[in-house]
């Protein structure tokens, strides 16, 4: 590898969680402006751009909207894990010399536009379903929550994981959200609250599910040398990797208790030259409580099957073995649909010591791990305060 090292020089979140007056693109713009200001850079410094959304040529469209004419762009779509992939790719581009300043943005007004229906992903009543792989799962009235519920049920069956253990993830996230003034929900909850909330798809309750929000974020990836005279301490992209097991059909997933994190995690750690024990703070995609349990196992923070005990023993809390989602996560703070960007922003803030009440003391290495689709994709990003 050449001497060029990729760093994150600036990060920002947009306003969240409720943006009734804003368009999706305006959320990108707000987050991007703030991230560039944070980095001490100007729009004219940007030569690379990355984002993703639900329409083809999405990144190209947002670039036009923002008045950018980038010579590097990327819109790899890995669902919620996309932004870990986009930053990994941006780091390669920086290190290869293919770009100098890559702006990565995310924006969504899912809550204002769609309200509640997206949350359960009801899907497809009546009519005819177009041919193709997705139809084989879609015909049965399965929902988005149902797909994760199928994984949770199987994990409970194989490893004795309990609904109370799953619930503890939501409780810890809410504890963290209490310190985040922007968080969508900040009132403390108990395990009893979670397991007595309405069942959406057994065994997942309403409070096992992420919130539905508006919001976005952005980060600026550049080279360490470019960042040397910028105002913020650079955060190094130490390593990244991504993987996929299946698309939208959970029936095509050979083992619902093992996610793509089991591939992306070890690869990312090896590329970063670290082990899971070196990680001080984690930002782990928490679309549902089960997502976190599966991820901590697959990333190697505990053995397969021990995730339930890991989270129930306070493993994710401040002072726990792996302080996780210090902003309150998607379960309490903000989940606009593809939350991966928030993981990166919060990881960078922790490494800069800007975590406020939820700052992990002397955090040197952070992991941002995204999960996308129906447990379909995993993308792991290892970030560090110091040059490798």
């Amino acid at each position, binding site marked *: 590898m050449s001497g060029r090292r990729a760093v994150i020089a600036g990060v920002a979140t947009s306003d969240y969680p409720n943006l009734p007056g804003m*368009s999706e693109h*305006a959320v990108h713009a707000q987050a991007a*402006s703030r991230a560039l200001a944070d980095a001490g850079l100007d729009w004219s410094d940007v030569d690379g751009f990355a984002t993703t959304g639900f329409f083809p040529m999405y990144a190209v469209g947002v670039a036009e909207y923002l008045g950018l004419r980038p010579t590097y762009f990327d819109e790899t779509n890995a669902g919620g894990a996309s932004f870990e992939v986009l930053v990994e790719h941006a780091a390669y581009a920086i290190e290869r010399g293919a770009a100098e300043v890559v702006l990565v943005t995310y924006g969504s007004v899912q809550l204002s536009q769609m309200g509640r229906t997206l949350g359960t992903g009801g899907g497809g009543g009546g009519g005819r379903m177009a041919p193709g792989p997705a139809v084989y799962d879609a015909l049965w009235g399965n929902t988005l929550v149902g797909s994760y519920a199928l994984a949770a049920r199987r994990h409970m069956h194989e490893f004795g994981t309990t609904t109370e253990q799953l619930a503890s993830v939501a409780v810890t996230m809410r504890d963290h959200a209490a310190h985040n003034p922007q968080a969508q929900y900040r009132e403390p909850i108990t395990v009893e609250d979670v397991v007595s909330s309405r069942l959406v798809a057994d065994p997942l309750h309403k409070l096992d599910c992420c919130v539905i929000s508006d919001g976005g974020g952005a980060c600026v990836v550049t080279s360490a040398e470019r960042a040397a005279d910028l105002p913020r301490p650079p955060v190094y992209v130490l390593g990244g990797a991504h993987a996929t097991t299946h698309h939208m059909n959970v029936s095509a997933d050979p083992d619902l208790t093992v996610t793509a994190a089991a591939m992306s995690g070890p690869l990312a750690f090896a590329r970063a030259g670290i082990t899971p024990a070196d990680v001080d703070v984690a930002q782990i995609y928490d679309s549902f409580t089960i997502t976190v349990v599966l991820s901590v196992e697959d990333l190697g923070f505990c053995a397969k099957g021990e995730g339930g005990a890991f989270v129930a023993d306070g493993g994710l809390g401040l002072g726990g073995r792996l302080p996780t989602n210090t902003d309150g996560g998607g379960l309490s703070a903000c989940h606009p649909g593809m939350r991966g960007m928030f993981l990166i922003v919060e990881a960078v803030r922790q490494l800069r010591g800007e975590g406020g009440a939820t700052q992990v003391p002397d955090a040197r290495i952070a992991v941002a791990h995204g999960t996308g689709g129906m447990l379909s994709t995993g993308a792991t990003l290892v970030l560090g305060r110091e040059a490798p």
Partner: protein
Amino acid sequence: MTTPGGGGQSGRWFPDEMPLPAANAETAGWWEACLSHRLVVQRCRSCGATRHPPGPLCPDCRCLESEWATLPGTGTVYSYTVVRQAFLPSLADTVPYVVAAVEPDGAGGARFVSNVVECDPEEVCVGMPVEVVWEDMGPELAVPRFRPRGTAGDEGATA
């Protein structure tokens, strides 16, 4: 002569079955001006750059503050094409018609894609002077189209 904001009389050039545009919070100001037959362009409050289509962000300086600047309603054809195939059945009697990128005077280089009407499509050329003429497509919607300037309907423009 045209009145500020454009003065051509309302007419109908396109069939009722044409799909109607939908406004959102970012574009409503432009359509509201159209409804009162005022041709406007969005202008950045900070750097003065104009832009179209409307949006909340200045692509030049990324300022979020903007205003609607009233235009005289005249302009020139930047480029155009003659559409000869009806993409909707209801357009069968309308083809051939002209789709043009018009540079309105005073719009700072912003261009509106519209139609050039009230002339033979074969007469349209790049650089042709045009003026706005309004088509009321319903109680809630008026659409600016353009016609050659100084040819048909000067009397209408002064009404």
